[in-house]
């Protein structure tokens, strides 16, 4: 019973206070930039993506989800060497889809979160690759084993991370 179809009335919609709304994405961006230099394996994780999915699913508002994704993605782009907007577009799409899914499905338990993150990680990478290759002209090579491995790692981390972030949820 990891994913259950739920009516809109049954779904809890959460909100977050401003320090959490601003601080958590910034912390995720900071850790993503800082930790891979110290722990090289950490580069397989995409903390900003996980935070985007978490906020989108908790708020269950597509506009809020896509704007959160766009903001986080754009800042992530600004820290990288490539043109600004590649991560922005990918995370906008994921934020929109995750919040749309959150409206229809109950994604509160660990199993459903695992599957949702697994799915959205792959979606994120597909959009990223499409934009990077099609619009920017980067020569990226798609590798299913690598992408699935990363998706699995991110899904596992998401289960623990979402449980931690649940503490900051506030009922509307």
């Amino acid at each position, binding site marked *: 019973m990891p994913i259950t179809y739920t009516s809109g009335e049954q779904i809890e919609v959460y909100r977050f206070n401003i320090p959490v709304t601003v601080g958590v994405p910034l912390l995720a961006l900071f850790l993503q*930039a800082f930790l891979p230099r110290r722990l*090289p394996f950490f580069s397989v994780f995409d903390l900003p993506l996980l935070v985007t999915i978490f906020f989108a699913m908790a708020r269950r508002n597509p506009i809020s989800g896509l704007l959160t994704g766009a903001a986080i993605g754009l800042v992530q782009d*600004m820290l990288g060497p490539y043109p600004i907007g590649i991560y922005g577009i990918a995370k906008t799409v994921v934020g929109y889809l995750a919040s749309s899914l959150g409206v229809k499905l109950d994604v509160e338990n660990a199993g459903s979160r695992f599957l949702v993150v697994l799915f959205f990680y792959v979606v994120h990478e597909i959009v990223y690759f499409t934009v990077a290759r099609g619009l920017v002209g980067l020569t990226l090579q798609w590798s299913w084993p690598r992408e699935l491995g990363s998706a699995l790692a991110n899904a596992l981390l998401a289960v623990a991370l979402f449980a931690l972030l649940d503490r900051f949820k506030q009922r509307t």
Partner: protein
Amino acid sequence: MESVLGRYRNLIILVGVLFLQVLGLAVQVKRSADAENTRLIRIWAVDLVTPFERGLVWAQNGSSDLWHNYFFLRGVRAENRQLKKQIEEMRLQEVRMSEDAAQAQRLQSLLAFREQFIVKPLPAQVIGSSGSDLSRSIYIDKGSNDGVAQDMAVITSGGIVGKVLRVYPSTSLVLMINDQSSGVGAMLEKSRLQGVARGTPNGELILERVMSDEQVAAGETVLSSGGDQIFPKGLPVGVVSKVSPGKEMFLSIKVKPAADLSRLEEVLVVTEKQERQPVAENGDRVRAADILAQRLPSVPEKPAAVAGAAPAGTAASGAAAQNSGGKPQPNVAAKPLTGTGTGTANATGTTVDVLKKVVHKPAAGDGTNAGPGSGGGSGAALSPVSAGSDATPNSAPGSVAKSAPKSANPAAKSATAPPKPSSPQPTPQPPATEDNPH
């Protein structure tokens, strides 16, 4: 109409946000073809994150230094002994190599080669990365305030790291050589084949544009060729790890980067490099024999009769050994001596002679051509790789002569110099009067 907008409001906003970002991307891609300046928005983002990174790196280094410098000193004494021993060995090695380097510089100056020299390296600390698995870039704690500019080379003692891609006031973004969008002019050390070292999406480094009919072996060193106008020539790029047939007519050569790109902590930014002709070093070089002599206990002076009892065939070299105090001489004759030499030494004075004889060096260990007594004194004097042990049969003590560098050559000494007693103690050498023919 309103109901339609209301119904598809979310979708319309999504399309609008995506459209704006695509538009922004298109503008950037168009502009990146021209010279791209660092955008203000990037500066804000970097300024938002890097202060925390700096603080964390500072705290981490501080605690690490405190622990390692004051508390965790186990094994330091043994390590110190080992390092001292290593320094001794490296000093000897350095002397040998400096002889070769000096010779190369002399040749280059003769041929008017121009070379790029690193004049001013700026140490910097790695404080962060781009945070993406799909790009390989790092942030360093030096920026335009410290003199860093775009396209400057970033290196470590191991090898090259990358180039400065964007410069901020107090930080810089460095694109590493294993990023898929980077490229470095490279060449193979032995075969001198040139190619382009590029990163792959997986973060590996490959050498491109080497024809498939060329022989490239795993383990060969790859150096920067200097062709990209960013990295000075001759810096280590990496080591060939795998060679396989590639696309079309080129080889696929995997290269293991010389610098450990995944664990960088400190780097050097080449803020200033100079293109000039290499200048051959003047005298005053430390010789391997001198270093060895300093380490050995002094040996009492031998009677002249003992020193003079050299085999007839090597009398001249014996005399030379006496002249030099029993020590083999370095390759001083590659710098033609004037004034103090005999006719044979003076005969080597022309540039063409010097070049010819240095390039066509005799086989190592050919002690018979050493010394003016062999009739080819000048030729031997120009031999840069005459084995010191063979060329100095009368050099005393034997241990000194055997440990001498290849370039040591007793005949290099002027035959007319006054004889001195044989002794292992270092003797000051008269400086060559004309080190560099140019």
